[in-house]
């Protein structure tokens, strides 16, 4: 026993090194496996405070862009107001409340931290569980999809950006509805993503619009993702691989919307029930 201690003492440098590296690996693995707010990340109050102050300053540089975008969005929304329909569509006005019920609600949030130049990129937003934000909610801007909420603390949440090797979004081609998974592959730059598994009978034209599909529990249908840039059929495959030009400028994100799917629990519960029922009856 004494020799063992002596051995460790003599080689303390290597053992300390191994210990610290093991600790690092533990931190890395834990952070990747469990979708929960870890103690040391940018949702942490100290670093989030500093980053928010920095984002506040940085925001001024994008004020003009942000204003233009907001003004454009305002105009678009005003166009959808009941007031603008009142004259021509008077009949529909009353039935609107009963035939349609709300499925999604939107919470606006500010980006306090954003990365775009890594293989796995994340954002931090200034809304958290106190504002009703939960894991896996969708994050969008007026120009398109941004990502998915990953971790939540009281007042902040981190978002797995679309520019992340782990992100996959179920998307479709707007004109004919053929769908496939969209991901950010190796070799895609900041404004690109790759859409897989589009059947070859679909006649693609560069410029075709890609939107989110209805099969996602997270994203509402028909949220803009981007446009077709080019497509190839890899040898031996019966599918097109499509390069998509993203409509969101990830470098200039400042205000985003977090989307809450009110019926998510209901749908999830139902699907789970059918699955388990199916298993037991067989």
């Amino acid at each position, binding site marked *: 026993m004494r020799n063992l201690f002596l051995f460790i003492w003599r080689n*303390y*440098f290597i053992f*300390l*090194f191994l210990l*610290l*590296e093991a*600790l*690092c*690996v*533990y*931190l*890395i693995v*834990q*952070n990747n496996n469990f979708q929960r707010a*870890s103690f*040391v*990340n*940018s949702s*942490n109050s*100290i*670093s989030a405070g*500093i*980053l928010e102050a*920095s984002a506040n300053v*940085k925001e001024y540089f994008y004020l003009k862009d942000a204003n233009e975008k907001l003004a454009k969005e305002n105009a678009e929304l005003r166009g959808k107001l009941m007031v603008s329909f009142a004259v021509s569509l008077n009949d529909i006005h009353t039935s609107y409340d009963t035939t349609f019920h709300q499925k999604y609600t939107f919470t606006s949030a500010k980006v306090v*931290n954003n*990365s*775009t*130049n*890594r*293989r*796995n990129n*994340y954002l*931090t937003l200034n809304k958290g569980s106190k504002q009703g934000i939960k894991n896996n909610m969708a994050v969008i801007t007026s120009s398109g999809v941004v990502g998915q909420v990953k971790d939540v603390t009281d007042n902040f949440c*981190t978002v797995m950006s679309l520019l992340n*090797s782990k992100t996959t979004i179920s998307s479709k081609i707007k004109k004919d509805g053929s769908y496939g998974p969209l991901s950010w592959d*190796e*070799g895609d*730059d*900041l404004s690109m993503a790759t859409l897989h598994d589009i059947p070859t009978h679909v006649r693609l034209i560069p410029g075709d619009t890609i939107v989110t599909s209805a099969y996602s529990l997270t994203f509402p249908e028909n949220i803009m993702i981007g446009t077709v840039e080019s497509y190839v059929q890899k040898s031996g495959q019966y599918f097109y691989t499509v390069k998509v030009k993203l409509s969101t400028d990830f*470098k200039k994100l400042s205000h985003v919307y977090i989307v809450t799917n009110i019926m998510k629990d209901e749908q999830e519960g139902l699907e789970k029930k059918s699955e388990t029922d199916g298993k037991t009856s067989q």
Partner: protein
Amino acid sequence: MVNTIGRNIIRFFVLVLVQVLVIKNIELGRFVNPFVYVLFMIVLPFETPKWMLLIIGFVLGLTIDMFYDTMGMHAAACVFIAFVRPSVLNWFSPREGYEFGMQPTIQYLGVPWFLSYSAILIVLHHFVLFFIEVFRFSEFFSTLLRVIISSIFTLLLVVVSQYLFNKKKEEE
């Protein structure tokens, strides 16, 4: 001695703030991510105890991790270069050894020595960091390219900051 410790503590905070507030926001594409804060590990005094190197590396890495949301990745890379630093210093030591009071800077040991010494530590740091971040070997060459290009930029910034820093010292 107190002076050295004080100077290093200030350098720690300055480098961390420069890294997370300035360099983090300079984006030159996916292949260029310089990490200048490594300079802190490079210019620690020769007399720093080995165990302290490891602890300092861990703390420095974790501090950067907090701002980059990478949990342990920078810490792993920093602890690694803290571990190899004594061997690299040994390897590059001049024939008569390092004199007491010397510091591993351009000012004391010249440009060629400093370039080769810091290049090795920077490349090792970036190599460990980027490969842990990607965590797969299928993107080996594109990751390697990121390592090389980012290392060049880091080295450039490190050398430039050395000249700025040295100038100030001569006036003292």
